[in-house]
């Protein structure tokens, strides 16, 4: 692969839940302004890896991390890391859309407000900007003050993306963002991902092999907590180096 500086560098990263190793010594770079897809069977550690990148595993009791994750050349696991500041740089979209039980507008504005943005006009501008970036503006512009939970599932997920974008993160983590959506909503999310990668570094967990092939530049295949193979998506799908990878992407197990 071309030597583009890595945005995120995983170095022998292991994650344990109690005595169980969910992730074993994963080493891989994540390059800026690319989409990196994490694939593998259920329980292989994809989501654990994703949640290590913004330290969401911290809130799981008895979780423990070894190794290191570097973001722009700084360890995010060192004791001096400000986790709150880290999460503002590394946004996240969850598998099941989880808008706050407040209005559409307030959902997106929330992140700005806790970041100290007070100016009402600036908030309004950035809410619109974010909703446009998440390709949902035209659908909600007339009901910005309606409760977010009245939106459809696909709209709620795009609202969650807008909410994550509003605080202008550098990295966007997506945990199966389309798994609960119908094909049309899924397609919109995929188009959105392709548009967003111009600005953001995106890491996406997906169970859907076609989706990984469609949206990602780099694919990493995990199996039982180990990184089996990672490389250009094209190569991983058409000429995998490992037999395990081949078996998985051709659907022989998983």
């Amino acid at each position, binding site marked *: 692969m071309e030597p583009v500086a890595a945005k995120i560098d995983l170095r022998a990263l292991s994650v344990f839940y109690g005595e169980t190793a969910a992730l074993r010594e994963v080493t891989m770079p994540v390059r800026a302004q690319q989409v990196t897809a994490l694939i593998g069977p259920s329980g292989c550690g994809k989501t654990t890896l994703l949640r290590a990148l*913004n330290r*969401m595993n911290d*809130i799981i*009791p008895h979780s423990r991390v070894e190794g290191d994750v570097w973001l722009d050349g700084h360890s995010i696991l060192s004791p001096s890391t400000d986790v*709150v*500041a880290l*999460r*503002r740089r590394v*946004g*996240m979209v*969850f598998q*099941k859309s*989880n*808008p*706050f*039980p407040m209005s559409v507008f307030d959902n997106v504005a*929330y*992140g700005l407000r*806790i*970041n100290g943005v007070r100016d009402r006009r600036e908030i309004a501008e950035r809410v619109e900007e974010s909703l446009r970036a998440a390709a949902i503006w035209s659908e909600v512009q007339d009901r910005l003050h309606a*409760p977010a*939970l009245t939106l459809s599932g696909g709209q709620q997920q795009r609202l*969650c993306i807008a*909410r*994550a974008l509003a*605080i202008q993160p550098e990295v966007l983590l997506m945990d199966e963002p389309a798994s609960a959506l119908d094909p049309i909503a899924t397609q919109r999310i995929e188009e959105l991902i392709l548009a967003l990668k111009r600005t953001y570094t995106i890491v996406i967990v997906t169970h859907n092999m076609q989706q990984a092939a469609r949206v990602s530049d780099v694919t990493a295949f995990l199996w039982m907590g180990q990184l089996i193979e990672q490389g250009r998506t094209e190569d991983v799908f058409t000429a995998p180096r490992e037999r395990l990878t081949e078996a998985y992407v051709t659907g022989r197990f998983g």
Partner: protein
Amino acid sequence: MTRAAWMDRAFHALGLAVLAVALSALMFLLADVWRDGASRLSWAFVTGYPSRQASTAGLLPAVAGSLWLVVLAAAMAMPVGVGAAIALEEYAGRRRWARLVEINIANLAAVPSIIYGLLGLGLFVQALQLERTLIAGAATLALLMLPVVILTAREALKAVPLAQREAALALGSTKWQTIWHHVLPTAMPGLLTGLILAVSRVIGETAPLIVIGALTYVPFVPDGPSSPFTALPIQIFAWISRPGTAFRANAAAAILLLLGVLLVTNGIAIGVRDRAARRRVA
């Protein structure tokens, strides 16, 4: 009919029978009190002042005292109880001392109320020199409410979906912002339910108030937290212990009023809770 279906019916009947027993005991109590006291219930009775004549004695100081007590006690118990629940549930984790505290709180909920009265007498009335005032009584009742408030508040906090906390944390909310902006509003209906339970428990409390020295003859409405006071259950107790049937009728009427006040406060609290719950969903 199969055996299983027969058993099903039998249990259904048994359940109804047990319910009927419980309800009929309550109905009997109500009917008895109603027969004795209904004729004494009048606006003059509710707004009157105590008197040596049963027929002119009124309840106003006791009603006002009870309302003062409940409102002050709730105002003290709610923030302290919810704060304690947040500390235990959100910050303490699963450490051993947190478990220890948890068990002790559950135990405290079962301590007889008269013990709280003794504590209130020693702590508020004597050590803090609050004298026999509303504030001392309310603080004692607040202690009595705390275990219930803490236990129910913990359950309410626990019930807030993890997805909502994660959404807030992933946006870079601090733990406190997450709790203040998301967890507490979502838990609010549950917190209010706990408050209702606690208020229902203390509004009928007599023993602790007698211990700390609530008066039985108060010919005025309390004018502030540092006023001496009486309360409905104490007035009932005082009237029942007097000879003659006339005062017993007064006591029965006061019981009806106490039940009425309880019904109204519970009704208001449930209304507030349901409104809070609807707002969160809408």
